């Protein structure tokens, strides 16, 4: 690699990846990591890019230990390809992050991105049981292992989750898998307003229903519950939920699949900025009220939100002028009803008006210290954040 001229490198082996990183560190190059490139615009704009390191040369499903419900996968493999392979033994890696049809394992883990399935299965950090990483100075190191239950040593795979490639490069990761459910039903209920929606959420949370996804959408005030299990159980649960929530519609088969792919894509296909934001599940009515107030006072055209009702986490799409969008982001950050408001998609103008990242300053010294420990020359995704 030569400084001053952006290079794209596609290493074919972990050792090659490590060697390229070592050379980049030696020359103090600024390196951007890239999988499928679906989330390259997440984070602050990189001030300088000398080289791009692609993980796409590392795309193999290294092992599917179906009897142990685990799989070891190289970082550049796409989630979709992996799940096709795992389905041969009736298993899957139950993640449905943004851009799920293209996103790679490494990118999903590095951003710890997830979707509606998080309600049951958690985020990538909950499913990863081991990783091999390449540090910026070119050391290949494993942590965790191949077994689901394991507390030997530090779990660095958790540390990499959410690091956005700023600490080390994920070379491969081992995940805990789940059996593919035999049957699935999705129930959609439409509430009249935020109060009724909050009441629905409360009722479902207090019940013994066990959905695998539990979503809300605003401004439609829709609630979605997905049940997946043996056929008798999904019918019984969908029926019980319908009794509880009144007028509802139940989807299955192709209609159900279409419903979910539309739901997962709707924020991204719409116009405007997208922020990720969190709220307390029992406080959802106030959170929706805050959005309404943002819409009324900021001058934006529309605000849409969808997310996980019980986790209290979702995406907010803000359509309008950058200055108005910025007012919404600032109001959400000031609001007691929201926390961890992070800009996902935003125009350069919006990014110049508000910081992409949110979060308490008390962790910054730790982040800086970790960065010095694993990437002493500061070559990995510099400036992009969150580190």
């Amino acid at each position, binding site marked *: 690699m030569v400084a001053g001229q952006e290079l794209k490198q596609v290493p074919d082996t972990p050792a090659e990846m490590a060697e390229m990183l070592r050379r980049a560190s030696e020359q103090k190059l600024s390196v951007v990591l890239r999988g499928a490139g679906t989330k390259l615009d997440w984070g602050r704009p990189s001030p300088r890019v000398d080289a791009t390191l692609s993980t796409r040369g590392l795309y193999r499903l290294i092992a599917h*230990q179906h*009897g*142990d419900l685990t799989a070891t996968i190289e970082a550049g493999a796409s989630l979709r390809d992996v799940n096709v392979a795992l389905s041969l033994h009736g298993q899957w890696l139950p993640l449905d992050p943004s851009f799920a049809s293209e996103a790679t394992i490494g990118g999903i883990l590095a951003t*710890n991105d997830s979707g509606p399935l998080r309600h049951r299965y*958690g985020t990538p950090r*909950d499913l990863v049981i081991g990783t091999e990483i390449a540090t910026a100075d070119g*050391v290949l*190191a*494993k*942590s965790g*292992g*191949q*077994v*689901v*239950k*394991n*507390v*030997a*040593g*530090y*779990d*660095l795979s*958790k*540390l990499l989750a959410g690091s956005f490639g700023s*600490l080390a490069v994920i070379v491969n990761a081992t995940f805990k898998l789940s059996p593919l459910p035999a049957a699935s039903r999705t129930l959609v209920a439409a509430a009249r307003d935020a109060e009724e929606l909050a009441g629905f959420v*409360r009722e479902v*949370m207090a*019940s*013994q*229903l*066990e959905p695998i996804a539990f979503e809300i959408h605003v401004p439609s005030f829709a609630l979605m519950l997905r049940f997946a*299990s*043996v056929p*008798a*159980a999904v*019918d*019984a*649960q969908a029926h019980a939920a319908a009794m509880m929530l009144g007028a509802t519609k139940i989807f299955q088969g192709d209609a159900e699949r279409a419903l979910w792919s539309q739901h997962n894509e709707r924020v991204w296909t719409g116009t405007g900025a997208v922020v*990720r934001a*969190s709220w*307390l*599940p029992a406080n959802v009515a106030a959170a929706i009220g805050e959005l309404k107030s943002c819409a009324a006072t900021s001058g934006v055209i529309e605000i849409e939100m969808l997310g996980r009702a*019980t*986790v*209290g*986490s979702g995406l907010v799409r803000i359509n309008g002028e950058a200055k108005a969008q910025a007012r919404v982001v600032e109001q959400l950050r000031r609001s007691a009803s929201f*926390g*961890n408001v*992070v800009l996902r998609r935003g125009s350069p103008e919006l990014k110049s008006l508000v910081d992409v990242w949110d*979060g308490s300053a*008390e*962790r910054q010294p*730790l*982040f800086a*210290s*970790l960065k010095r*420990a*694993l990437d002493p020359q500061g070559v990995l995704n510099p400036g992009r954040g*969150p*580190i």
Partner: protein
Amino acid sequence: MQRTLGVAPRTEDYNRANLMDRAFLDELRQVVGEHGLLQDPLELLTYECDALPHLRESPAAVVLPASASQVQGVVRLCARHGVPFVPRGHGTGLSGGALPVAGGVVIALSRLNRVLDVDIPNQRVTVEPGVTNLEITRQVAPFGFYYAPDPSSQQVCSIGGNVAENSGGAHCLKYGFTVHHVLEVEAVLPDGEIVHFGSTFADTPGPDLLGLLVGSEGTIAIATRITVRILRRPETVQTLLAAFATIDAGGAVVSDIIAAGIIPAAVEMMDALAIRAAEAAVHPNFPDADTVLIVELDGPAAEVTALFDTVVDTCRRHGATTIDVAQTDDHRARIWRGRKAAFAAMGRVSPNYYVQDGVVPRTRLPEVLNRIRTLEQRSGLRIGNVFHAGDGNLHPLICYDERVPGDPEKAVQVAAEILSYCIEAGGSLTGEHGIGADKSSYMPTMFTEDDLAVMQRVRAAFDPKGLCNPGKVFPTPRLCGEVPGPHRAHPVEAAGLAERW
């Protein structure tokens, strides 16, 4: 370093304590108060070891802070004076994670035992680290909720210790470990700063520091406040106990259940020796068999009913000699009592025992268990096996008699050999007890020098001076007498003051 049981601490220990800077001790006293500082050698005796009593060390002092700011004050003092410190919960750890450091301070968190907030609408509870695991469930049970991780010691172990060790339990196959249930931890860093790992709201931006902290065995920070999520009690629970003539048959049932796409809430196995011990201790009415398997399913009624039939059929197909389905909650409790008492019950069939908790991929269980049986014959030491079959977590209980010359050493060798089988099978040194001081010397069998060096870089990012629970997790040159070893009575136990159960 290792002391003969029942003999008073050696004079060197007193001297070492006396050598601790008087001014430092006065400052500690100012932080925690007169009653929060223990220096009397008799009082220190309790803190010499955790539930791995063969590793023991006398600390220079023990402090019992009553608030997070007192913990912070103590840590700041230690940092300023370069004094190592060891956090300690209720001392139930099985890997010597709370083993004191000579000349150091033990920070015992037992007085930080308040339940701070029970938030049923948001399904979470906030407690101080000295609250016991079971107390959380007690707080929320009236509302139909529970805290999922359930280590066998849940009645007495502290939630702070659970966070340090990433404790599991019998139900983690379906419900995960402590790391999956902790939302936020307030902790004191080795330099005395208070930092929040995770936050009240989901998705704290940045690397998952909380995920790193949970399971770091008290080496990067001391938790002072912990928020956990609680779960709704499942609608239905079904439990069965099936007996088999061979361990292979039991293992085949587990494989078939998993292959059928069923994730049981728990799958436990016990072998003949463990069954006999449990029967002698708590009379759970287990059949006299080579192997028993306990399978528990929970969830929505329609799901449990359908899948439970499959489990029963699978047991029959593999030649179960008896299948005992729990008909009542009492019946289920009796089955679990037999399982959870298995460790302590070993005392009924052997004067001493040593327990390990290696992990193997589930599919390699039969092979590894057969190797253990061969080893049993070769070594002449009986080995009881109790294990979480669903996740391949073994608990070999190695029986020996410390009065027989050479026996304790043999037990150590047998344990080491079993761990080597686990590593060869692609498993782990520990599934839930932690590396601690006990197994740090085995870490190079599982990780390369580079792996360990990178982990150490992360440790140093939190604790550059190496003062926070030094000597744990990572291999250091061994000191004299500091060898992994078998169960011995805790000094308090030996003095007849407490009973292991």
